[in-house]
């Protein structure tokens, strides 16, 4: 909702500046999303010429030093004023004169943007203006390039003006400031000037009397036009008020009204339409005016649309209506989509003489559904869908007639008003809240009289009775129900900033974290220690069997939630310095989703890692083994056909895989959830060896088909003394097979090992490998 500062100022009568009012609204009422100045002369101020020197490089130009007054945040001269160097071409300036100065950054009414520029070697920080340049005097020709002489001369201002005064004040420009306010969905009344003004006045503690005139004179005696209204469903249309007005003069609305409409973003059309829009802004109640002659058989039926019916709206679009939509129809066809958009055909035009004014209340849910189905969102639907008071039309119709009568003096207002409704609610309801409860929720003690004052100013007359507030809630404040609502209202006017910061006092209790989260954190930490960089990628992909499908994707090919994060990390092109990175270690650990045929999918944590570097497969295998060893988890790797790598199994179930893509590219993936219970909770300490180990190397030649993993396993289990075995070299020898070399360590916990022990183990290993794999020992 766009609100005019001038309008509020005149209505409430305050002296606060636009910025001060913006702050009041922002901190006490609702968010000010934008403050828009409507002055044409923003950035043009009164300056005094302090010094004039000839321009060193141009005969026709002069160099002026101009005092533009104190400008906060800018470097300033000795008296706190800012002195600007400005190059000027006009010859009519003299020291001591007051002139209009367009400051850097401002845009003149003619569209010229003022920048600091160098003019023939001298920097100029702004521009002295002529009347014509300010669009205050007509002149021929186009814009003057900066620094060139202004033939008509600089506008010399009255010498009594204060330096720094905005030019808009000097010329009495009718400038305004517009506040664009965020509309809270529980406060439809914030879509009206009345409620915003009332609350601003309450913060300022100004007595606010809206003084909205509702009087009008109706035609006495015979009135030969009338409309019969039939409401088919009072649930969808709880109230329908109407009035026939004859002999209106349709013409442009008065300037003050047009200005407020424009300020609030509405286009002036004609006086009748503008008045209905003005009341919409003032009171928040939508109003619609029909051309009476376009209502067939003088009959209005508020009914649901018939399938196949269409209407051409005032928005210029043809709308296909459905059963669920409420329409305002005459005896034959829909004239308007109720509460959303009027029909083009039945609208008020310059030719209209007689009108039928509709002020109604519609069901918020129905309006919202219809508005969404049609894709039509109007100022009217925005208000109805937030839920308006069923009592508001009484006020609004009188206000609209009052304004129409002011505008179109000879018009005749029917003495008979239509008012179709069922039982109406009370104008106010009473609630009681203990002041103690309010203070207890706020955490501050507010004097009861202050509470009474605030609520009363907010149109909720309140009295204090035995420590309890007895509050009259007007019907339009349906959101006011209990202690929390009352506290909220009081605090926001009282000032949220006045509430102290008080840390809660509580009974201590240990903080708990789920094992899975702790495991995830540990895994991430280990991987980081191993040099991996963590990445987050999109959770969406184009789908796979059992993946969870989105009803409507945002991007056409991202239709599903990932059931496997592998595709993301393997397909991603990792960039560095705007080029694909050629070596990296990365991992992602996040949720993957599988549809298991239940209401909610199975969500599990999946870890994927990728290395792009030399010997990528061995590097990533080493990283994975280190990770698992660090976590104390034992898994099984198994070769399977068709997989360029191995499966990872835990408890015989597949939990992931490790895959070589290329020599320099490999990845692994692993589900984490199942491993959490197996995570070694605390590490066990192993006594340090009492006797020194013996280390030696062995190298073998084996046929190519023999798996190194099998040989490692064989060596590791060859003798109880073998405590460590690691591969340190593999190279292929062509037809002969491959040469593989190991570091082997033997350790005993009970004795010092001897050369004989080593020899025995060596022989055992050699024999086993020879037997099983036809391995030949390489003598070094």
């Amino acid at each position, binding site marked *: 909702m766009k609100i005019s500062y001038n309008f509020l100022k005149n209505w409430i009568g305050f002296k606060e500046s636009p910025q001060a009012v913006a702050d009041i609204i922002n901190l006490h009422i609702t968010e000010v999303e934008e403050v828009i100045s409507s002055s044409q002369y923003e950035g043009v101020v009164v300056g005094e010429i302090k010094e004039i020197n000839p321009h060193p490089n141009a005969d026709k130009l002069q160099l002026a030093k101009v005092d533009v007054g104190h400008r906060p945040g800018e470097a300033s001269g000795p008296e706190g004023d800012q002195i600007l160097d400005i190059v000027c071409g006009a010859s009519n300036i003299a020291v001591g004169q007051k002139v209009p100065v367009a400051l850097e950054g401002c845009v003149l009414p003619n569209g010229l943007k003022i920048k600091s520029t160098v003019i023939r070697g001298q920097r100029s920080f702004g521009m002295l203006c002529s009347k014509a340049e300010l669009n205050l005097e007509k002149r021929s020709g186009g814009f003057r390039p900066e620094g060139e002489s202004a033939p008509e001369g600089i506008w010399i201002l009255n010498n009594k003006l204060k330096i720094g005064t905005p030019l808009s004040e000097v010329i009495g420009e009718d400038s305004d400031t517009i506040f664009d306010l965020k509309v809270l969905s529980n406060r439809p009344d914030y879509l009206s000037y009345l409620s915003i003004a009332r609350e601003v006045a309450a913060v300022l503690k100004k007595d606010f009397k809206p003084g909205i005139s509702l009087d009008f004179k109706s035609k006495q005696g015979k009135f030969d036009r009338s409309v019969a209204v039939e409401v088919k469903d009072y649930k969808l249309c709880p109230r329908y008020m109407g009035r026939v007005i004859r002999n209106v003069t349709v013409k442009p609305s008065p300037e003050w009204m047009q200005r407020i409409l424009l300020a609030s973003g509405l286009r002036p059309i004609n006086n009748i339409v503008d008045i209905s829009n003005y009341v919409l802004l003032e009171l928040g109640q939508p109003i619609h005016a029909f051309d009476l002659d376009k209502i067939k058989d003088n009959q209005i039926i508020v009914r649901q649309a018939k399938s196949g019916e269409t209407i051409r709206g005032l928005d210029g679009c043809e709308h296909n209506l459905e059963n669920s939509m409420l329409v305002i129809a005459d005896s034959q066809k829909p004239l308007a989509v109720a509460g959303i958009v009027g029909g083009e055909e039945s609208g008020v035009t310059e030719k209209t003489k007689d009108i039928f004014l509709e002020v109604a209340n519609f069901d918020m849910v129905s309006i919202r559904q219809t508005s969404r189905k049609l894709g039509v969102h109007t100022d009217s639907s925005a208000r109805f869908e937030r839920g308006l008071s069923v009592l508001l039309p009484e006020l609004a119709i009188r206000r609209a007639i009052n304004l129409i009568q002011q505008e179109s003096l000879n018009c005749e207002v029917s003495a008979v008003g239509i008012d179709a409704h069922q039982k109406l609610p009370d104008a106010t309801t009473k609630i009681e809240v203990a002041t103690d409860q309010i203070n207890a929720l706020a955490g501050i003690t507010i004097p009861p009289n202050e509470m009474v004052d605030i609520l009363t100013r907010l149109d909720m007359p309140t009295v204090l009775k035995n420590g309890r507030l007895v509050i009259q809630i007007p019907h339009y404040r349906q959101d006011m129900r209990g202690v929390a609502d009352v506290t909220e209202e009081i605090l926001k006017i009282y000032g949220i900033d006045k509430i102290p910061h008080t840390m809660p006092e509580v009974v201590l209790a240990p903080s708990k974290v789920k094992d899975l989260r702790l495991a995830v954190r540990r895994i991430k930490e280990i991987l980081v220690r191993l040099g991996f960089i963590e990445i987050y990628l999109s959770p969406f992909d184009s789908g796979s069997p059992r993946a969870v499908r989105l009803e409507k994707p*945002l991007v056409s090919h991202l239709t599903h939630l990932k059931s496997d994060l592998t595709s993301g990390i393997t397909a991603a092109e*990792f960039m560095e310095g705007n080029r694909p990175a050629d070596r990296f270690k990365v991992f992602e650990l996040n949720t993957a989703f599988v549809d298991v045929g239940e209401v909610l999918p199975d969500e599990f944590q999946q870890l994927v890692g990728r290395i792009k570097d030399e010997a990528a497969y061995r590097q990533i295998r080493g990283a994975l083994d280190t990770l698992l060893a660090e976590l104390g988890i034992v898994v099984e790797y198994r070769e399977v056909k068709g997989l360029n790598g191995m499966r990872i199994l835990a408890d015989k179930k597949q939990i992931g895989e490790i895959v070589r893509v290329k020599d320099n590219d490999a990845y692994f993936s692993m589900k984490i959830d199942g491993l959490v219970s197996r995570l070694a909770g605390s590490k066990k300490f192993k006594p340090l060896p009492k006797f020194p180990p013996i280390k030696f190397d062995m190298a073998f030649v084996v046929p190519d088909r023999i798996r190194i993993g099998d040989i490692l396993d064989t060596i590791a289990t060859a003798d109880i003394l073998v405590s460590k075995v690691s591969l340190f070299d593999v190279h292929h020898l062509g037809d002969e097979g491959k040469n593989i070399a190991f570091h082997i360590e033997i350790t005993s916990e009970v004795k010092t090992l001897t050369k004989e022990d080593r020899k025995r183990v060596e022989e055992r290993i050699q024999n086993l490998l020879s037997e099983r794999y036809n391995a030949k020992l390489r003598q070094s």
Partner: protein
Amino acid sequence: MEEKLRTILKEARAEIVSANFSDYEQLRIKYLGRKSALARSLRKIKDLPEKARRDMGELGNRIKREIIQLLNDLKDKAKDKARDGRSASFDPTCPGIVPDLGRLHPITQIIDDLIEYFRGLGFSVAEGPEVELEKYNFDLLNIPDNHPARDEWDTFWVNRKEGSKNNTLLRTHTSPVQLRYMKSHKAPIRIIAPGRTFRYEAEDATHGSVFYQLEGLMIDKNITVANLKAVIDAMVKHILGEDVETRLRPSYFPFTEPSYEVDAWFGGKWLELMGCGMVSRKVLKNGGVDPDEYSGFAFGMGIERLIMLKYGIKDIRYFYQPNFDFLKQF
């Protein structure tokens, strides 16, 4: 005598020139010590006749100086050698071989930091599913269907049928965790719930369709707006710095009342950080908490937004792009 002195010098020269610095002390004693041949010879000079005494004295002193010089040279040679112990091609100014430095993603870092911070205040960490039931994401949070409040949460629907109780969606905020936790735990409650959330919203520099939130919920006896202010302020100071001020502005969320937006004075202006408020009585009831006995506050903030403010990052999409120029900065 002369012969003897010259022999001493010859021997000393031969031995010292080829010696190592480790022998320095031993050689010094051998040639210059009180019991050295030189010292003994010099002591005998005084017994020589006048002329020979003068000549031999001169010679003896010259030889002594020469031996001192030789020993000094040995010392210097040792020093030079220490410097030359490195090979000539060694250049100590050559840069190091840089090891791969692993890094956690900035989202992980800030969430871990906040978890640690709140655990220090006794908050537990709660979780909830990312594919959520409509009732937890909306209805039980007092956001009924067809209410304009729902416009605030553009939604990725997974399964939606009119009137069904099993409608599912990608959670639009972490607030459903509040209800799940309330339903499964007794008050008092002190939790934070970090997690991934989704909005059906075209992506641009400031809007992501996927982002992280951190929800906070505290329910106890006598929890007040003043408590909310204190906890929020302390948290913001923890993240953005002790000199950062916060303020609350009126707002509206269907699940809190009163509701506030939190601004932080950071980098010379007020920046919107998060929403918060006192948990509404209706939501407490929906979670099985007696609103007459307990009150509480809740807050929810966008993690990426927080990181963006903290580091001055202008594009939210960086967080989900595989770009090391970004990732290696945190």
